[in-house]
């Protein structure tokens, strides 16, 4: 009975052969394959060339697992065992495990494909990351290189504006000024896009006078619309609180982009700027911003693509400028946990709207008190504060000198590198230090660190402003870490510069015994 069963099951999956040193078949039971006696076993399959090596081995038994053998078009998976006999022949046992190995094959096929797919995705991501990092670095460098000469162009234009020039010259100067400002905006947009894509743009929430901010924006664009002979409707909901908590810089950036677009593409009719909220008595309220125009509108099929980063550059005919504005708007609204909605009819106009949840400040009056105090301090100041500037580029030194002379409220000394800044500080008494970050011998960051660790507390506690063409967040973080109190970028905005100086001097006097922290940290 068992012999019969053995015959039925094992004989069908196993073949025994005897092979001599010449690799000729001495005997074969022909259970699986027909292999003739006295034939060269290597003619049956090239695997059997390896038997030559087996004869040379000292070990008498060997097993070769999962050997693929194709016979008459059929693929077999065999485990092959060899045993060297005393008569110098080999017993070769072929064990057919095709069904078992086919299952193994299926499992490994799925597993390997999955691992290879993962590897490829991982490497593509690494490649993208390298490219993105290269792009961001490139943009940062290009931005820096352009900002440096632009700084002197914009700065000296402001200086020129205050000289005795004719009406015609003033008109030309205004055109150059506008073009320079556009160039600065494009640079800012490029850096913002790059920061957003790198996930480095952070939302900074602070309490601010929301009503005043919106009113100023409304008035500004009222004037701009008037210049273009367009009607401008401005509406602010009655439920809007005066003080709100949010990122007013980013909200401003979004609104300016939307209002600029509305102005640019509306040739007749009107622009409507509307800010409203439905709730009032809550800690956070949804504030809806809406800009509507009667401009050229957007073709239906292009509405989705107008927000694409950089691809706008190819569509100047439709959107003009760098085309980055709407892409930034879209991404900034996402950062503000909102979504930009657009409805548009080609030839009739567009409406852009978004809703941002903003915190309601519990104290709606504090800001006013601070303002009064600040004005008082300013009035009480009689002596000209003395400022020390560290700046190596001659044209920038000249520009700053001119700006300070024109402004008249401060006296300024200029040192051409960080080491000289420290020497000047040891020799004279200053109220504030402005440092260019890129200087020879000792750069702005190292100089700031040296100042902060100075043994004389009157020097170590001086307010320091970074003034640089570098705009990357890393640079700003490094400046903060070095103990700098404010970070201004070139081209120099004279108004912002003097506002910052005044603010820091006021705070310095108020907290003269403490080291100031970088602006924004306190907010």
């Amino acid at each position: 009975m068992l012999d019969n069963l053995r015959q039925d099951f094992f004989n069908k999956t196993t073949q025994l052969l005897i092979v001599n040193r010449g690799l000729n078949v001495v005997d074969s039971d022909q259970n699986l394959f027909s292999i003739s006696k006295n034939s060269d076993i290597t003619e049956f399959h090239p695997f059997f060339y390896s038997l030559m090596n087996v004869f040379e081995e000292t070990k008498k038994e060997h097993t070769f697992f999962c050997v693929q053998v194709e016979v008459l078009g059929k693929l077999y998976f065999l485990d092959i065992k060899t045993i060297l006999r005393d008569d110098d022949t080999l017993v070769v046992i072929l064990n057919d495990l095709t069904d078992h190995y086919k299952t193994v094959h299926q499992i490994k096929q799925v597993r390997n494909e999955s691992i290879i797919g993962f590897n490829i995705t991982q490497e593509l991501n690494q490649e993208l990351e390298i490219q993105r990092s290269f792009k961001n670095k490139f943009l940062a460098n290009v931005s820096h290189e352009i900002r440096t000469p632009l700084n002197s162009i914009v700065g000296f234009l402001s200086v020129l504006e205050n000289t005795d020039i004719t009406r015609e010259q003033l008109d030309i100067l205004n055109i150059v000024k506008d073009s320079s400002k556009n160039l600065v905006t494009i640079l800012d947009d490029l850096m913002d896009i790059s920061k957003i894509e790198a996930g480095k743009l952070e939302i900074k929430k602070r309490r601010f006078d929301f009503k005043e901010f919106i009113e100023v924006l409304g008035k500004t664009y009222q004037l701009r619309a008037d210049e273009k002979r367009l009607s401008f409707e401005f509406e602010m909901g009655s439920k809007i609180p005066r003080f709100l908590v949010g990122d007013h810089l980013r909200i401003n950036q979004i609104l300016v982009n939307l209002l600029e677009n509305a102005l640019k593409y509306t040739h007749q009719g009107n622009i409507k700027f509307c800010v409203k909220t439905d709730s009032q008595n809550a800690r956070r309220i949804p504030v809806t911003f809406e800009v509507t125009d009667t401009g050229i509108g957007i073709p239906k099929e292009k509405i989705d693509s107008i927000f694409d980063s950089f691809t706008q550059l190819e569509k100047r005919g439709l959107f003009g400028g760098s085309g980055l504005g709407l892409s930034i708007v879209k991404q900034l609204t996402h950062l503000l946990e909102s979504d930009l909605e657009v409805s548009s009819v080609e030839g009739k106009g567009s409406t852009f709207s978004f809703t941002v949840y903003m915190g309601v400040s519990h104290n709606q009056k504090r800001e006013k008190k601070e303002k009064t105090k600040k004005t008082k301090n300013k009035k009480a100041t009689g002596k000209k504060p003395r400022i020390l500037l560290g700046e190596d580029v001659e044209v920038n030194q000249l520009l700053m000198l001119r700006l300070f002379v024109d402004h008249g409220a401060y006296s300024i000394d200029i040192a051409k590198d960080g080491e000289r800044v420290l020497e000047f500080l040891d020799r004279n008494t200053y109220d504030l230090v402005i440092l260019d970050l890129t200087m020879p011998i000792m750069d702005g960051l190292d100089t700031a660190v040296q100042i902060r660790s100075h043994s004389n507390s009157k020097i170590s506690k001086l307010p320091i402003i970074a003034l640089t063409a570098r705009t990357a967040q890393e640079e700003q973080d490094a400046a903060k870490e070095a103990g700098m109190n404010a970070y201004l970028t070139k081209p120099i905005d004279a108004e912002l510069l003097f506002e910052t100086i005044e603010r820091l001097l006021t705070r310095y006097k108020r907290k003269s015994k403490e080291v100031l922290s970088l602006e924004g940290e306190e907010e």
Partner: protein
Amino acid sequence: MSVSKKIVLLGHFGVGKSSLLRRFVENNFSDNYVVTIGVHIMKKEVTINSDKVTLIIWDVEGTDDFTKYRPSYLMGASSFIYVFDASRAVTYGDLKYNLSHLKDKYPQVPVHIIGNKVDLVDKDEIMAALKAQDVQHSYLSSAKTGENVEQLFNDVAAQLLENA
């Protein structure tokens, strides 16, 4: 003179060992990836300067850890061809480690290092990556286009005849 020599193709899975073999022996190529399990063996006779050598080429199942190769598969090998996928860094990131294992266990067996799928990559980048590892490759090949496949096996055969 006619001799037969065993060559073993080694490397991670999915690097194109079977495709190289099929291109060399049958001169065809398929884009479909079919996993090799165990070992698949093919032979081809090569003539070098009127001397003939029969290459018995063992296409062994891929693995990232060469210490896991079954000794029976590598037994009696006259040459190793270490294949990596030039488009997947993970397949050549551990070259040094695996080479050191081969050198340790099979000191007499020459190893030829082949970067396959070179049609998918920038050759300069691969060469720079290998240089960084201080690894000297034999060929950058493509089973898909046939680039350097014949040359590779002919070189191996010539070396085997030289050492025979």
